[in-house]
């Protein structure tokens, strides 16, 4: 005794989602119901037509905005998306003062989440995301520009509780743009940004939260389009990020390392 065949079952038959036993019953039933067969044929034609209509999308060139967003949130509309980006980058508590009330509110709501995110995100990834978020920013890539390097150094050193100074990479073709303060896992971290003559940007992420870690030699990580060299020196963790080839970045990383060693 066969149960009546329902519409969902007919569809499941078509999609190969029906149990074999029931499948045989449905086949038998279909033999006596040409109208149902016609409908199934139309559903198959739908499937074929949907592919014909929308498959060309697969071959379209990806818009730049989407390609960037695959690495990190894109700049357009970034004020609106600020809280998301903050969480994404683990940069929620960046001191962007002015926004006052609403910011403080968001802050409280999202801060616990941000710290959770940050604690689970390793140094190179945090650095790469911070790089991806801030380096495309034309208007406000840094909080304090290189013109006020003294202020920048004083401020960041005070906030990080230790002397922090951006290395000079002029001989390698990279000039300092400036820097900013970001939240790390448990406290502030610093980001210095540089660019070369072609506008290519490079960031150095400096964290002072590595009390429990042993020193680690140069390591390389690739996060999407961003290459990262990172190393740990005492309580300092450094990560150098840029969208430039690995060997080129290695040269800069070596120079940074040597300058920091000499201090």
């Amino acid at each position, binding site marked *: 005794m066969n149960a009546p065949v*329902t*519409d*969902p079952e*007919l*569809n*499941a038959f078509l*999609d190969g*989602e029906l149990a074999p036993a029931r499948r045989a019953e449905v086949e038998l039933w279909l033999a006596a119901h040409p109208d149902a067969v016609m*409908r199934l*044929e*139309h*559903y198959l*034609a*739908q*499937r*074929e*037509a*949907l*592919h*014909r*209509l*929308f*498959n060309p*999308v*697969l*071959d*379209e060139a*990806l*818009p730049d*905005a*989407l*390609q960037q*967003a*695959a*690495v*990190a*949130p*894109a700049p357009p509309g970034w004020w609106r*998306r600020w809280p*998301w*980006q903050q*969480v*994404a980058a683990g940069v929620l508590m960046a001191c962007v003062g002015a926004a006052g009330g609403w910011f403080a509110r968001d802050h409280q709501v999202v801060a616990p989440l941000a710290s*959770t*995110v940050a604690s*689970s*995100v390793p140094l190179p*990834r945090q650095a790469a*995301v911070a790089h991806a978020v801030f380096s495309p920013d034309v208007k406000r890539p840094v909080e304090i520009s290189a013109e006020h390097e003294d202020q920048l150094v004083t401020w960041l050193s005070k906030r990080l509780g230790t002397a922090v100074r951006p290395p000079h990479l002029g001989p390698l073709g990279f000039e300092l743009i400036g820097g900013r303060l970001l939240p790390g896992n448990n406290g502030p971290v610093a980001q210095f940004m540089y660019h070369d003559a072609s506008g290519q940007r490079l960031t150095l992420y400096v964290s002072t939260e590595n009390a429990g870690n042993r020193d680690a030699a140069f390591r390389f990580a*690739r*996060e*999407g*389009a961003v290459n990262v060299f990172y190393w740990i020196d005492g309580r300092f963790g450094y990560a150098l990020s840029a969208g430039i080839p690995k060997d080129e970045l290695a040269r800069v990383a070596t120079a940074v390392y040597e300058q920091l060693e000499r201090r």
Partner: protein
Amino acid sequence: MDSTAILAELPRLRRYARALVGDKAAADDLVQDTLERAWSRLARWRPGSDLRTWLFAIMHNLRIDQLRHGAPECVPIDEEAHVLPVRASQSDRIELDNLAEALAQVPEEQRAVLLLISLEEMSYAEVAATLDIPLGTVMSRLSRGRERLRQILTGDRASPRLRVVR
């Protein structure tokens, strides 16, 4: 999760968004919002789980927010308004010109399921996970969506009248 894996999913996310939303710019905006939210939820991504389902689920939730807060979905309100100048097709092949328009007239919750299965070729279980609905709901929405689309495309008047939805 890394960008390479996400990049690999992008073409499919775009195809689905285009089919679901219709408008190209609006569809790409939805994809972009999806990527941004995905990055913001990095910590919730379980390595080893299906990235594609995760991304499609994020997109689905964003789309629901959009529909809730944004412009109301266009739903035909009477029989007259949605009758399409569809010629009874001589061949079995569906005219693509009609398809996009007809698809837009299928209620979105049915359209989403129909597209995930017929276009994205997900299994019923994957669709249930993506949309966070029971398997039975996947099956009923699919069967109603396909039948609705068929009626619109073939101008099948003998079929039950379209109800006013929401």
